[in-house]
């Protein structure tokens, strides 16, 4: 996979220049995250200083303390986790079945369906807040976590199906035939052979559904209107962010707490993600 040629062909000073700029860009790109974590640990006096320094000599946990002492912060965190995990698991299973159907079978309306899945990705989620609000109200789902989970499953499905196609397609058909030869039933093939083989792809795909559910701020803001015990992390973060007098230490500490789970998830699936995107796009 290494394209040795392109490295070899670049002349030495150019490569050093390229490497220096790559490192410099990496620093610039990582700087906002560094500043976020740094500010979370800075004592109050250093944050609200007109001479901000890129280090701190007196790290303090005060900001984190303020965040965790905020009413039911742990509960918000748990709510966010429940929403994100439910969305990831349910949408991965549904998308796996649907992707299998559209890649391993030929049937009428298959192309139409594929185009529909593509079109569905374009639907602006935010525009649907209005009808979804009425829908949730009519089903008595306002102020429940369900009102956050259900729409996110629906919105992450089209992209997940679209992306999983490549992974399902990559499993050789010979394998399917061999399984049937050995007398495996359709569902046995599906769950015991295809599923484990497609699993890396499912993980890559779930990054996207996890992020969209974890980041959700609009639905939480619109559907959880009176019962704050059902609220999620973004809402807790905004408590510290008052436009006129923001508590930057609190905002940065809450942001750090909110970013870490996604970062962990990303680092865990990083390799699969890169190969998965390549596969999904090439296919």
């Amino acid at each position, binding site marked *: *996979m290494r*394209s040795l040629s*392109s490295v070899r*062909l*670049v002349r030495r000073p*150019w490569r050093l220049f*390229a490497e220096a*700029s*790559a490192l410099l*860009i*990496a*620093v610039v*790109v*990582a700087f*906002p*995250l560094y*500043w*976020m974590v740094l*500010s979370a640990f800075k004592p109050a006096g250093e*944050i*609200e200083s007109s001479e*901000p320094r890129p280090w701190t000599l007196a790290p303090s946990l005060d900001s984190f303390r303020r965040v965790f002492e905020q009413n039911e912060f742990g509960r918000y965190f748990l709510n966010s986790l429940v929403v994100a995990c439910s969305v990831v698991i349910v949408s991965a*299973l*549904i998308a796996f*079945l*649907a992707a*299998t*159907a*559209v890649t391993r079978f030929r049937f009428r309306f*298959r*192309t139409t369906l*594929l185009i529909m899945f*593509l079109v569905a990705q*374009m639907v*602006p989620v*935010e*525009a*649907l*807040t209005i009808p*979804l609000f*009425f*829908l949730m109200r009519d089903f008595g789902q306002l102020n429940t976590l369900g009102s956050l989970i*259900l729409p996110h*499953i*629906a*919105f992450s499905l089209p992209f997940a*199906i679209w992306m999983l196609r490549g992974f399902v397609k990559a499993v050789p058909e010979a394998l*399917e035939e061999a399984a*049937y030869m050995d007398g495996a039933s359709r569902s046995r093939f599906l769950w015991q052979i295809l599923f484990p083989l497609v699993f890396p792809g499912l993980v890559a795909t779930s990054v996207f559904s996890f992020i969209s559910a974890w*980041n959700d701020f609009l639905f939480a803001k619109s559907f959880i209107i009176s019962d704050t015990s059902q609220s999620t992390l973004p809402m807790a*973060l905004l408590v510290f962010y008052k436009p006129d007098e923001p508590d*930057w230490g609190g905002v*940065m500490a809450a*942001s750090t707490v*909110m*970013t870490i789970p996604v970062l962990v998830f*990303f680092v865990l699936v990083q390799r699969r*993600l890169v190969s998965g*995107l*390549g596969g999904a796009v090439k296919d």
Partner: protein
Amino acid sequence: MRQGRGLSRPRGGSRKSNTAPRPQGRRRGRSQRTPWLYLAPALVVLGGLLVYPVYQLGLISFFQYTQAQVSGGEPTTFEGFGNYAELFGDRQFWEVLLATVLFAGACVVSTLAVGCSLAVLLTRVRAVPRLALMLAALGAWATPAITGSTVWLFLFDPDFGPVNRMLGLGDYSWTYGRLSAFFLVLLEVVWCSFPFVMVTVYAGIKAVPAEVLEAAALDGASQWRIWRSVLAPMLRPILVVVTIQSVIWDFKVFTQIYVMTNGGGIAGQNLVLNVYAYQKAFASSQYSLGSAIGVVMLLILLAVTLVYLRLLRRQGEEM
């Protein structure tokens, strides 16, 4: 979409006829039903939570729907195209539409330029700088939109932010002016969306066989020439995908604008369609006007999708 290639697919009946003792008819019937069985959960969820709300959105946009109707105090009345007429007669709507198109366009162009150049850069460097850049990009990618927005706002804070200090701008407020506020949001959007482009294009370049590049280089092609005549055509499908994805994502930017400009900026100067629709519906309870804006957005994105499908079709790609 090419039919020929698809025919090699196994069909339940004929393939298994000599191993499975089941009657032909039954198997064929089953394999026609199986895909729909697998699709059922997806179709139910999408039907109930995507298609139906879209239909409702269209419906609401034709009715008079304000707080009075929501609370049930007054009956809903059919307005026909009244809401649309009101919308199209509103100067602010056209301003917001123009701002949305320009802002999304600027975001797409910057994201693609940054993402593609960094992807090329990644192929020119050894493992350590590559890993550093990759990790930094993944970090930016993983950052939730809302925390990214607050962090960038803090970086550019007139009183306590490091950027103004570094650039010697004193207490210049980025969110006060219309253009500078849009520029700040653009920086954040590019920061969190270039990694997708970079990683995807990089994966695409890696998939180009080394011999092809070597041959081009042996023939004396310059770097620029190799990129233009060899890489770009081979990467075209990938470039189409990342462009369209960026258009869709950037046209729908919500959180960044909402958080960074505090709901659309001073006197709504930084509104984009998405935020505008939300403000109309939930801040001023004009649900039908908000829905009408949503329908307009939907139609614009639908047009983009059609262009995308045509591009795919022209490449003769099988779905």
